Structure formats: structure tokens, C-alpha cells
């Protein structure tokens, strides 16, 4: 018994070949089109630009804004609206609150973890006044970070740094 060669007519052969070639050309063409679409400066979607514009016009960054809300709610009553230890309740404390605009606080801010510790564990745990309560169970770590960011803003740039 002999094996029959498949009987393919030259016409079908040619059609199949053309199909393959057409596919190849199409694939290369599509790749080219895709490359065109991704060219830089493609479709204009302006979400960031709008947000950036608003952010630019706001005096505080997003972190600082969140920090300020926390500060105004929990801290300002003793430490004062602008951090100058002149809050409504400041005069009633035996040991006055920290002045965040004083140079020594700016120096303390270099060691951020120490400041965070005072906020989270209270004054007594760091050898300071017990009038500063611990906020560790009230504020979560993210909120503490936001608060410290705002404290930095209140403290102003460190001494010797170039002004704005």
C-alpha cells in the first residue's frame, strides 16, 4: 500500500499563501498603529492638571490641610491657632504648652520620632508635663504624620534656611 500525497491544487496553495502574507502584513500594520496611538501627547485628559491648579491656589498641601483640621480640633485650644502657645486654655495650665514657633521647637523637630512619641504617648512618658495627654489611641499613625507635617508648617523653615 502506498501513501497518497494530499492532492492540493496550485490555486488553493496560492490562496493559502496570500492569506498568510495578508495576516503578516496586517499584524505589522496593527503594531504600527498601536505605536502611533501611544505617541506622547496623545489624548488630552486633564484630571491632574485641574487638581494641580487647585492645589497650587491652596496655601496648604493636602497633608498639611488634613493636619490643620486635626490641629484645630484637638490641639489649638492650648497651643493656639497659630502655634504660639496662646490658646484659650493655655493660661490655665501649671506648665504652659509648647510654643511651636519658638526656635527650640524647630530644633526639636529635627528628631521627628521624639515629637511623634510625645504626641502618641503623652508628655509624661518623655519627661514633660502631664498636661499633654497621650493621643496614641485617638489618632492613627497616618493622622499623626499629617499633624507633624502641619507642625512643621507652623514652626516655619529652620533657622539659617533660605526664606521663601
Amino acid at each position, binding site marked *: 500500500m502506498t501513501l497518497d500525497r494530499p492532492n492540493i491544487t*496550485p490555486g488553493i*496553495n*496560492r490562496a493559502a*499563501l496570500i492569506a*498568510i*502574507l495578508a*495576516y*503578516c502584513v496586517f*499584524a*505589522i500594520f496593527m503594531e504600527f498603529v498601536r505605536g502611533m*496611538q*501611544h505617541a506622547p501627547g*496623545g*489624548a*488630552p*485628559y*486633564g*484630571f*491632574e*492638571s*485641574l*487638581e494641580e491648579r*487647585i492645589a497650587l*491656589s*491652596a496655601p496648604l498641601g493636602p497633608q498639611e490641610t488634613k493636619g490643620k483640621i486635626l490641629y484645630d*480640633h*484637638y490641639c489649638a*485650644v*492650648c497651643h493656639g491657632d497659630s502655634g504660639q502657645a496662646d490658646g*484659650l*486654655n493655655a493660661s*490655665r*495650665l501649671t506648665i504652659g504648652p509648647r510654643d511651636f514657633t519658638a526656635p527650640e521647637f524647630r530644633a526639636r523637630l529635627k528628631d521627628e520620632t521624639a515629637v511623634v512619641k510625645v504626641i502618641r504617648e*503623652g*508628655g*509624661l512618658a518623655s519627661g514633660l*508635663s*502631664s*498636661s*499633654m*495627654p*497621650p*493621643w*496614641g*489611641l*485617638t489618632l*492613627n499613625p*497616618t493622622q499623626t504624620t499629617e499633624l507633624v507635617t502641619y507642625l512643621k508648617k507652623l514652626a516655619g523653615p529652620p533657622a539659617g534656611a533660605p526664606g521663601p
Partner: protein
Amino acid sequence: MSLRALFGLSSLLLALLTLATFVDEFTASWADHQREYNTLLAEKATDPALKKELVSRWPVFEQIYNPELGVVDRCILCHRGIDNPDMKNASQPHRSHPGNLLESHPQQKYGCTICHQGQGRATDKQAAWGRVSHWEKPLLTGSFVQATCTRCHVSGDVPQAPLISRGRKMLRSLGCVACHQVEGLGGVDPRVAPDLSGIGSKVTRAWLSRWLTRPDSVLPAPKMPDYGLRSGEVEAIAAYLMQQRSPMVDSAPAVPEGDYDRGSLIYKQFQCIDCHVTRFSRNGKPVGGSIGPALVHVATKTNRKWLFAWLRETHRMQPRTLMPHFKLSDQQAADLVEYICEEWYDPDIEDEVLDEPEPAPGEQKKELAAVGMALFANYGCSGCHGIDHGPSPTRIGPELTYIGSKDLHRFDFGKVDIRHTRPDYFFAKVKDPGQFGKGLDVPSHLLSSRELLERIWKGLTPAALFSERTPLPAGKEDDTVTWILDRVKAAGFLKKATMPPPSDEASRPVWLRKTLENSGAFSVLKMPDFGLSDEDSLALTIALMSLTEEGPPSKRYIASPPATQHFDPQGQVGQLFDRYRCLSCHSVWDQGENLAADLSNEGSRVDRNWLYEFLRRPYSMRRTLTIAMPQFHLTEDEARTLADYLWFVTTRDDIPGRLDPPLTATEAEAGKLLFQAKGCQACHQTSTGGGDVGPSLATQVPDFPVGTWAGDKLREGWVATWLKNPHALLPEAREPRLDLTQAEIRALTAFVMSLRWPGPQQKVNP
């Protein structure tokens, strides 16, 4: 070329292309990012074997698949470190997700595109961010992500998403929904605007004109937006509103003579300042509450007769008002009116009232009022302000239910120079609607002079004032220009001195068009300017973006706000709550406002006897507070009914009245030391002094029949529960939660409860 050669060539090409596919996949940017990420991990790894494994690890193809949400997200191909806290400060795409949102919305369950949108199936940056042609939902970043929260958080505030919560509230509180239907948001907040039936008996014409022209020139931060009305429109609307008379006020007898000093005392007892701005501080800031309208110039706005009627019949005149109905005799009301008229008037407007021109003769006035009524409906005033027998409230603006899904090409950006995206459009529109005003949309040279004049006449706004009333008279072109000009001037769009150019008569219609366009006379925009800040505009933009056709992805995912009991007192108590409008300031469960203390747990918090006495003789809770509950002069019966009801209904089962075992004197001694050690005295006063942040624990209010110290007023179980976690009882409490043991809590409670007024024998009410 032989068939064989062609076959060979095409086979080679196919093989090359197939190879290219593989090469493409292995050099894909996501694979590169994964290698970078593995290197980052390797740098942090301490185990050398792991280090080695990480460096040689092959990129893997992964996706998040949740058919219920329709999520197929391949974002994690590049954002490998999304849930790795070590990657907090890494560069993108390796950085971890900011905040703690993934704890409540794990990305393995929700995917990314459900919140961020973009094209989840894509595997390269531009396509995945959806910033390609024909992808309608590009990636949302920053605060814009909040726009998708509402798909699941269908009502109420969204935790951790302040802007969408605020924006959604603003849609109701600004009155947007009065003109624009938004399904699911309900109608306009009834507090937005007063009912204007009888307004003509209430306000002076001069005040009304000034208010309609520029609300912010009358009151600081007025709730009514600026409609940019022209003087003619103001005159017409004022004429219409002044016709709305209140027979009750008009037919009332003259107000009896009042006494200023007695009135001043009543003013203080009623604590008007809790709800109304009554003066400006030295640096120009308004002093007083914002629940009611500012009273700084109220005597200029209204008259004695109306004030008298209002104070006597508050709820009959405005059934929906938030103001309590105070108990006042005729004489007391007259005293208070005397005080108000002496104290709060605006000398500027007083002069205007004197200079007010003679009102127009009867017939003309009637016609003007008819125009005013049409304008009132045309500007949508009736959406917020009801008037008996006035125009029915219709929504004059387009529906906004699905505005966030509206095709971009269907937005009319006009000549406004902004990027063509939905958020840019929303922002520009709410921040400064005026810039979207239009001129005539036909070039002048395409029309004959007569046609142009017709167009001008028809295009003028408001339609009611001009085109509908008279057709343009036939006549010489020149006369017609003057005719139109006269009417426009009369309506206040142009200065009286405006005259057409003398020469070159052919161009006069064109000149007229240009002049009117510059004066804004063609503006068809009815949307007023709310004077929103950037942040408010952003909140509103996000709220509008959230109004899409896409409902909740699946019913199971709908986040419902925590269930609260419904507060709806009936019978006598219900009447008392209504008469004194307790819920205008206090909240109980799901009802009320947060100006004053939340009363949801009041029964568990305070002593019943103290509550009764407090309702009879309210006092300011803190030395530093200027506001206090008004003196309502409740009868004994009323006070007892309210106290008993509150005490029983708002007592919580899970907060015991007394602690078990009973507190001892030894514990109180220990508590006293603890009170100092924990720094409690920094905020609370005791008999040995202390701060002013929290309420004083040892102050006796003068002339109060029972003790007002902490031990007299509070209940043991509540103090202990509060100390355990103040924020569980009152989320916005300023008191920090301290790390206290059960014994410490008991000791502190014992100390606080031992603070009792050592005064005379206490009166006990049955």
C-alpha cells in the same frame, strides 16, 4: 517566482512574527517592572538564598478576576508593591497604596478599576490608564477617585471620602436640585429658602431691591446666589413680590409701645445669637449662629408690625421654620421689637428708603408685577421659594441624574478656554457659570438688516421682558434700532447715555448687536453664581462626576450606612419637640442637627432630677462658651414630660446606671491621684482648679436648685463607659482615649462621682 519560494518566504515571515510575539512579551514593560520590583525586594531581603531567588525570579502573568463586579484587572502586573507597606516611599509603579483603604477594600476582592476606572485588561501604561482614543473612562487619580465611591456607598456620607460627601450634600443644600432633577437625591432642602407668601408685608422695597441686585452687599455669605439681575428685572420682580401681602400682618393693630431695656433682657434669655448673626466683631467677622438669617440689619429689612406678628405667631406664619415658638405676651413681644428696631438697622439703607422714588401709578405697576411674576418663574425662583397662588415649582435646568455619563461631545464648551473633559467642564461651570453665556449664533453678514434686528429682538433675555410681549414694529431700520435701544436701556442693560454712532447708518444693526453682546443682554444662561471657593467647586465637580448610569456593581456590595433607630416622638412630647424645635439644634438618633449636644444617650448620661431642673433653667455648659440653650420658660408640666420622656427613651441597655460592685471611698482616693497623673486637670476644673477645655466637674451654677457638679449631674455607668473610649459615645469628642485598666477606670469614675456640691439640702423632685 515559484510557488515553492513564495511558500518558503511566507513561512519564514510567519516564524519571525511568532518569534517577535515572544520577544515582545518578554520585553514588555510590565515584565521589566516586575524585574525591577524583584530587585527592590532583593535589596531589602536579609536571607541570601531568598535574595538569590528573587534576582533570578521570572516575571509572572496575573490578573484579578471578579465576575460579580465585572472586574478583570491586570494592574497588578506593574503595581506589584500595592499592598506592601515596605514600598511606602518607593518610586512608581512599585509604591504601595496610600492610606489604609486596602484594608477595607482588599484589591484581591475588588480589583482596581472599580474605583479608579481605566482599562483593566490592558497591559501597558497608556492603554491601562485609558488615556487613549475611544476609552470613555480614563484613570481617576487623587481626589477624583472619590467620584466612584457612590456606586456602592449609595447614600449618606462616605467614610474617608470628604469631598464626595460634601459635594453630594451641597447638591441639596445649595438648592441645585431645585432646578435640576437628580434621581435618588430627593427634593431641595426646605431650609434653603423661605416661603415668600406675604413677603410684601414683611420687607421694605429698598431692602428687597438691594437684596435682589447683590445679595452679598446685604448679608455676609448669603445663601441666595447672585443671579446678576439687571435693574429693570429687579424692579419687576420686586414689584411682583411687594404685591404678596399677608392679611394677618396688614390687618393687625399697631404694635404697642415697647421698652428697650426689657427687650434687651428677653434677647439675652432667648439666646438669639445661637442661631442668628447679630453683630460683627472688631475685625469684621460675623458673630452668631448660621441657622437663621443674619439680624444685623433686620430693622431696615422689615417693619415693626411684621416683627411683632412673627414673634407672636412664628409657626403660623412659616410652618417649616426652624425657629422655636417662644412664649411671649404682647408686651414682651413689643419690648423685643423695640430692642430689635433700635439695635439692628443699616443707616445706608435707611437713607435709600427716604430717597425712594414715588411708586409707579397703578396700571403700570400691575403690568410690571406681571412681568416680575414671569421672571420669577423664568429664573426658577419658585424652585426654592414657595408662594401661595404663585408660579408652580418647575425644574428649569436639565436633569443631572446621569450627567457623569453624558457623552463628551454633547457638552457645550462654547468659547470657554478649558480642556475638553467632563471634570474641567463641571469645575468651570459651577465656579463661574457666567462665562458660558452666549451671544447670537449667526454671523451678521449672513442676514439682512431687518432679519438681524428680528434676531436681536428675539434673542434678548429675559424673553418675558421683551420678545413675547410685543412684536418688533415695522418701520425704518434706524427707528427700530432706537426703539430696541430704548427698551434695553429701560431694562437697565445699557447706560442711558448709550447712543448709536451718528454716521454710516448701514452698520447700525451690527453695532447694536455688538453693544448688546458686550452688555450680556443675550445671555441665555439662567444659572446663578454661587461664589464657590476652589475647594467647594472641586467637591461639587466630584459629586457631578459620580452621577453616572452605572448603578451598584452588585446588590451584595451596596454599603448601607450604620442602622440607627428612628426618632419620632408622638403625642404631647411630639408637640413639645415641635413647638420648641428641639431638633433644630439637638440630635437624637437619626434626627436633628449638631449645633447643641447629641441627646441620643442622654438618659444614660445624666441624672433625671438634674435634667428636669436644667430644662426649667438652662445654663451655659462651659465658661468659655457664648452659646447656651434659650430660656423657654417651660411649665413644670412641660419640663417634667420632656425630662421623663428623654430619660426613659434615651437610656441605653448596655450602659448601667450604677457600677457593680459599688464604688468605694478608697477607689475615689486612688482616682484623685490618677486624675492628676493622667493630666485630666489640664482640661477639667475640679475644686482645686483646672482647665477650660472640657466641662467643669465642680462648679455650682448660681441660683440652680440642685447640684451641678459632676457627681450630681452624671451617672456612674456613663462616666465609666466614657472613660473607656470617649469616641465610642461621641466620635467628635476632643477628649483623648487613654490606655486605662479596668481598675483605673473604676478609680477615676469613683473620684468624678465623689465631686458633689456641698451646698444646702437638695430639693428632690418626685
